């Protein structure tokens, strides 16, 4: 409830002025869970933009995966992350310690959630792709029936890049792709996902930003 209000009164009006998204192929977004939405990650705005693509009545079940060490590091931020955004916290480097870092994500998918997942792991340099990490592959293997929908975002890294405090208004592009193919091996899966992002990016013309 708090989350829906927060989006209706704060996030949506803010995004209307600051980003004003140009959404292409919005009809390809999953209508109900479980589903995984994967996107390139350049800005804190990415998460709220992706969440705001869904209508208010679905918001409670739209949950972004976020690093526990970053988003739960202080009391107010943890409260914000849990109650207003509804993150699924994951522990980075958990696999080395022997536990399944994606257990929380699996549980959310089993409850029928739409999970937002940034396969690059962390925000990269603005408007650049980073290497896709293997987490998304393991998640897709574990839930073969759940669709993985790629979304290419452009402009949010210009509006609010890593390390910046004040957002600068830019029109931003959100290109939604078809669900990705599911090869059984890691390398082809990750290569296919990366190619899908490149394909979506090629739909737009973007001015240089250096």
């Amino acid at each position, binding site marked *: 409830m708090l989350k829906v209000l927060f989006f209706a009164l704060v996030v949506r009006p803010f995004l209307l002025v600051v980003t004003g998204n140009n959404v292409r192929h919005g009809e390809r977004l999953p209508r109900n869970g479980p589903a995984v939405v994967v996107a390139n990650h350049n800005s804190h705005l990415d998460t709220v933009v992706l969440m705001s693509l869904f209508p208010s009545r679905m918001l409670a079940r739209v949950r972004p995966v976020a690093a526990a060490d970053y988003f739960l590091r202080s009391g107010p931020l943890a409260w914000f992350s849990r109650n207003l955004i509804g993150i699924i916290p994951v522990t980075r480097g958990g696999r080395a310690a022997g536990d399944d870092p994606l257990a929380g994500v699996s549980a959310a998918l089993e409850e029928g959630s739409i999970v937002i997942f940034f396969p690059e792991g962390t925000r990269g340099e603005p408007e650049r792709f980073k290497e896709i990490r293997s987490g998304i592959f393991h998640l897709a293997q574990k839930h073969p029936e759940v669709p993985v929908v790629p979304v290419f975002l452009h402009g949010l890294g210009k509006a609010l890049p890593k390390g910046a405090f004040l957002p600068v208004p*830019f029109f931003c592009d959100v290109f939604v792709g078809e669900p990705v193919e599911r090869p059984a091996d890691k390398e082809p899966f990750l290569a296919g996902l990366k190619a899908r992002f490149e394909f979506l990016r090629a739909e737009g013309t973007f001015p240089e*930003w250096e």
Partner: protein
Amino acid sequence: MNEILERIPQGPLLYVFLGVLGLLAVAEVLGFVLARARPEKDFSELRARVRSWWLMAGVFMLAILVSRAVSLVFLAFLSFLALKEYLSLIPTRRADRSVLLWVYLAVPFQYLWVWIDWYGMFIIFIPVYMFILIPVRMVLHGQTEGFLRATGTLHWGLMTTVFTLSHMAYLLVLPGKGDMGARLVLFLVLVTQFNDVAQYTWGKLFGRHKVMPTVSPNKTYEGLLGGIATSFVLVYLLAPYLTPLTRNESLVAGFFLPLAGFLGDVSVSAIKRDIGVKDSGTLIPGHGGVLDRVNSLTFTAPLFFHFLRYLHY
């Protein structure tokens, strides 16, 4: 209750509003009949355009009716959207992020000068103060590579989307009785947009000889001249009714307004071609972006304003 009644437009304003709604209704019917008569052709873009026109005309009319404050906020927001579209289209430097914030800040200030009717500041704020502020803020971060391009493009954008369009807002605060401000804005916007449609229609129907093939391949002499002639008649009929212009002055305005609209349109087209995009945005279905819709106004607004001000204020 009385206050609400007073807001309802009367006289010329009311009749022109009704005329606009009538024109849109004709266009809607025409789109429907065409789609019925020739099912093999695709009229969906035409009909999307007309549908967007209803919305734009409705929002615009409401905005200029409700109150001066609402009109100014509406026009300031229009400038902001056009500026945002422009800044999203052009190449910008990462180092200029904070400069862009200052550029955006010019919008509320420019419209504040209009609101408090400070003409002297209104007319020099962007040409002088922003002209100086932008490079000064830029040398502070010290990146010289691309400096000239950045100062040039940012200032050009402010002039086009904020300075020129704010002249439309200044029409609202010119001294005059009753609804004169709203009538002037309505006249300017109606003539400019009508001229766009007239040139487009004449060009579609009779266009043969290209007028600026490298800039805008769809613009023809037939469209240009037919559009100017049609708009000339509209200005001649409407100007004495909605504005303080005399019949003779309307003859002059009837010639230069449609021509200025055309030149504003092709200037923005040249920029889009330079950047390599067809539309400036996707905000208005069938039309493209905000900049695509206000491109003609960027030239007609200041020219009409200064013509009027020189002769009558």
